[in-house]
């Protein structure tokens, strides 16, 4: 358990992890979320609409990054809010996988409010795929 404490310093890196996303991950997320848009599982369809191939659900990428944060924090309810911009699609090869690199740093601390802003940098092959990925987190 790594709950954030009030002496956390701005700029501190909290963790850096990689998570693999393959076609099976996409199928599993489609079923769990109810998002069956064929660009996330049908290569022919994805190519026809001008994509480089099957791409991950933006909400899957957001969810995986959020899970990395909540697993690190220990208590998922410490995340008070969480928002992202979807800036770049994540193609998922077959065979193979997209490797998401997730790096969390402290962007701001509001000791009076008892919260900190955690900035998540999420990239694939050195290209950032989420913009302004930020969570407000409770301090302990």
């Amino acid at each position: 358990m790594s709950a954030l404490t009030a002496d956390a310093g701005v700029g501190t890196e909290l963790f850096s992890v990689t998570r693999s996303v393959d076609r099976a991950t996409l199928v599993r997320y489609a079923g769990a979320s109810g998002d069956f848009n064929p660009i996330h599982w049908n290569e022919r369809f994805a190519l026809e609409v001008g994509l480089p191939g099957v791409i991950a659900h933006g909400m899957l990428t957001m969810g995986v990054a959020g899970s990395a944060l909540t697993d690190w924090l220990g208590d998922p309810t410490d995340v008070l809010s969480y928002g992202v911009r979807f800036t770049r699609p994540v193609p998922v090869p077959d065979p193979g996988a997209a490797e998401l690199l997730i790096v969390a740093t402290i962007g701001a601390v509001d000791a009076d409010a008892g919260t900190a802003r955690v900035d998540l940098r999420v990239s694939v092959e050195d290209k950032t795929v989420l913009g302004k990925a930020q969570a407000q987190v409770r301090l302990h």
Partner: protein
Amino acid sequence: MTGMTEVNADLVGRVFSGTPPYVVSAVKIAEFAEAVGARSPLHHDTAAARAAGHADVIAPVTFAVVIAQRAEAEYIDSPEAGIDFSRVVHANESFTAHRPIVAGDRLHTAVHVDSVTERAGIAMVGTRCEITDDGGATVVSVSSTLAVRGADA
């Protein structure tokens, strides 16, 4: 050349709340947690969740999108919205939690159409889902922006 989209800005301010309530199950929470790699026992193990003070397992932070997207369909699919879903790209998403979603919750969603702005043939459509429990208390707010391309964009 870029054309205007067909997105109807007259619906800004409208609230859609006709989607039936969503009943949260422990099985669905576990499935979703597995799909996004959320390993906390609070998502998977009722005893662990109870030991932490919850009535049952709690949902991962982005789970509310399942409920929100279901409700947003009432707006997006309505003919008067003028949204061609094949031209939609998800631009941004945010969640503000008021309390965790817990297995057993029966949740109601009001979809607020907050903004429609159009520039260079792309309409940005901002919605906000206010998700409340049976007691009327807000559980989570979900804000979403969709980018809708016009026919020539």
